[in-house]
């Protein structure tokens, strides 16, 4: 209850604002339409309703988006190519695969970086530089390049997801694996613990909060990667493709619906990582 009420209040505020903005942003076009149709003196309530019911509005009204989501998911068979559930599933599978790759790669790199001076010095700047490359620019070339060697479908998308999601994991884990206080490390030194033991008994548990924080960012970003990859490769479907085609056909409602499904998916994934985090926290005796 105490958690629902604030969310509902803020949601309500957003909805009100959204409806108002919809009137504002769709008004010019509605006025043009009305003028063309020789409709003058439209009362404001009617006018507002008109702006919330446009076919291709600049800003669709919330109920239009919700109706579209409903129509494109529940009202359709799952296997239909118009079903956002179908496209969502395609994107989700690429996301999960990419996230798994990305997390593994990120952790491996972080481990290499904290254990090897040369890797630390040489890798970190380039890992950062790699993220300054606009992926949307490279994604089509990656898709074409991988396509040329026969890799199509899920894998190129997952690779692009991985490319985006490994970064927060490396950064977070490097920080996390270095987070033990000196005295905690000193203790291990007095036991002459092997690097492997220091890792499993000290660095890894100490890095857990960082790992989960990174994974939350990572999984959301992984979804973005999958969507970006889909923008470069219209075959095969996916939420990104729906965004794109919606944009070509001026189907703003479709864009928003796809966008919300994508964000909803991401929110669910982040929440899943969050509950895994709570589980692990509890097992590690964290203060309530």
């Amino acid at each position, binding site marked *: 209850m105490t958690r629902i*009420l*604030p*969310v509902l*209040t*803020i*949601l309500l505020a957003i909805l009100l604002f959204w409806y108002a903005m919809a009137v504002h*942003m769709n008004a010019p076009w509605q006025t043009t339409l009305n003028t063309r149709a020789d409709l003058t003196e439209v009362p404001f309530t009617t006018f507002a309703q008109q702006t919330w019911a446009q076919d291709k509005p*600049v800003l669709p009204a919330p109920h239009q988006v919700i109706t579209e989501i409903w129509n494109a998911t529940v009202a359709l068979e799952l296997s239909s190519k118009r079903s956002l559930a179908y496209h969502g599933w395609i994107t989700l599978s690429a996301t999960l695969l990419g996230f798994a790759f990305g997390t593994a790669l990120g952790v491996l790199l972080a481990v290499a970086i*904290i*254990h090897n*001076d*040369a890797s*630390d*010095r*040489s890798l*970190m*700047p*380039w890992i*950062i*530089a*790699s*993220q*300054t*490359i*606009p*992926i*949307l*620019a490279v994604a*089509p*070339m990656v898709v074409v390049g991988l396509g*040329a060697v026969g890799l199509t479908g899920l894998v190129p998308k997952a690779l692009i997801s991985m490319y985006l999601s490994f970064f*927060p994991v490396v*950064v977070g884990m490097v*920080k996390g*694996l*270095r*987070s*033990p206080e*000196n005295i905690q*490390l000193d203790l291990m030194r007095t036991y002459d613990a092997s*690097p492997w033991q220091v890792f499993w008994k000290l660095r890894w548990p100490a890095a857990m909060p960082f790992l989960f924080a990174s994974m939350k960012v990572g999984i*959301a970003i992984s*979804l*973005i990667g999958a*969507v*970006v990859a889909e*923008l470069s490769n219209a075959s095969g479907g996916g939420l990104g493709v729906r*965004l794109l085609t919606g*944009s070509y056909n001026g189907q703003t409602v479709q*864009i928003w619906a*796809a*966008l919300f499904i*994508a*964000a*909803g*998916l*991401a*929110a669910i994934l*982040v929440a899943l990582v969050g509950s895994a985090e709570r589980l692990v926290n509890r097992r590690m005796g964290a*203060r309530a």
Partner: protein
Amino acid sequence: MRSDLSSLQLYLALVAAGTGLAGLLAGLPTLGAAPLLTAFYALATLSLARLVMPWSLWLDLLLALLGAVALIASLPPGAAMPLHHWLALFSAWALAWLFVERLSAAIRRGRLPETGIGLIIPVLFGLALLVIWEVVTRGANVPPVLLPPPSAIWARLTAEVPLLWADFVQTFIKSVIPGYIIGCLAGLAVAIAVDRSPFLKAGVMPIGNFMSALPIIGIAPIMVMWFGFDWQSKAAVVVAMTFFPMLVNTVAGLNAASAIERDLMTTYAASYWQTLMKLRLPAAGPFIFNALKINSTLALIGAIVAEFFGTPVVGMGFRISTGVGRLAIDLVWAEIAVAAVAGSAFYAGVALVERAVTFWHPSVRGGRA
């Protein structure tokens, strides 16, 4: 056996010499054509002498550089390169790696100064990547419209400086900087507002998390729709992209102060703002800088991506997106290179400030493995 080689270093030394020898043998019939390469093979094989006599790490660097130069000089134009060149590439790479290992070990033991010398390592790593890229694209005849060699990109880069500069100004100066500043400040301000009121926090955070998961790709066309074609819409995308990481990190950071540190403030009956300014914001410093760093790369990507959805005919994103269609792939990569350099410099700047401001944090003042 010389004891100052770690097992990894020993292994690398053996690989370098072994592949050198193999290259020498495999290339014997045709070696006359490439004297430089022959010299490299021979010297790489000879480097095995390190097992019995002192062998300066700088010799390894020289050898690696010789290998790279010899390889690039002897790349056959048009045709695929002979097999043994791959061995040379491998050997030179192993030597470079060995050098880097030895150099960082020397720095760690305090035998070489950190400043200046420390920079060699990442630079060499980047150079190695470039050499591999050059040799592979040219040696394996990768079509330049798929992936041009770095040399071609560099040629294009130097030839198009005014164009690249105009794009840089449009994208970086006009869109990224204002968007970054506004987005980060707004994220910080909202985080503090949200922190003040548990009600707002409970309401905003789930929605904030939801919004941060919106693929920006989706909001880019909408922003263009709302704010027009010019830099304003790009700045708006940057604001949207940088806002949430800052919000989420700051909220987490504001909770980072330990229980006893808060108790202290409680005993002083410090006001909310006093606790904020004197305890919680400083303690949140590492988190805020984390967001600033993440955002420094996100901002540039955001602006570039937003330019895919309509721009005036200038800007890095515009050039990249239209360049592919014109098959001006080397220009595209030149633009990407500019983006990478600008982004890295931006990041490095933020990281430097971070070191200065959060000097007290264990991750800054030590604790390296």
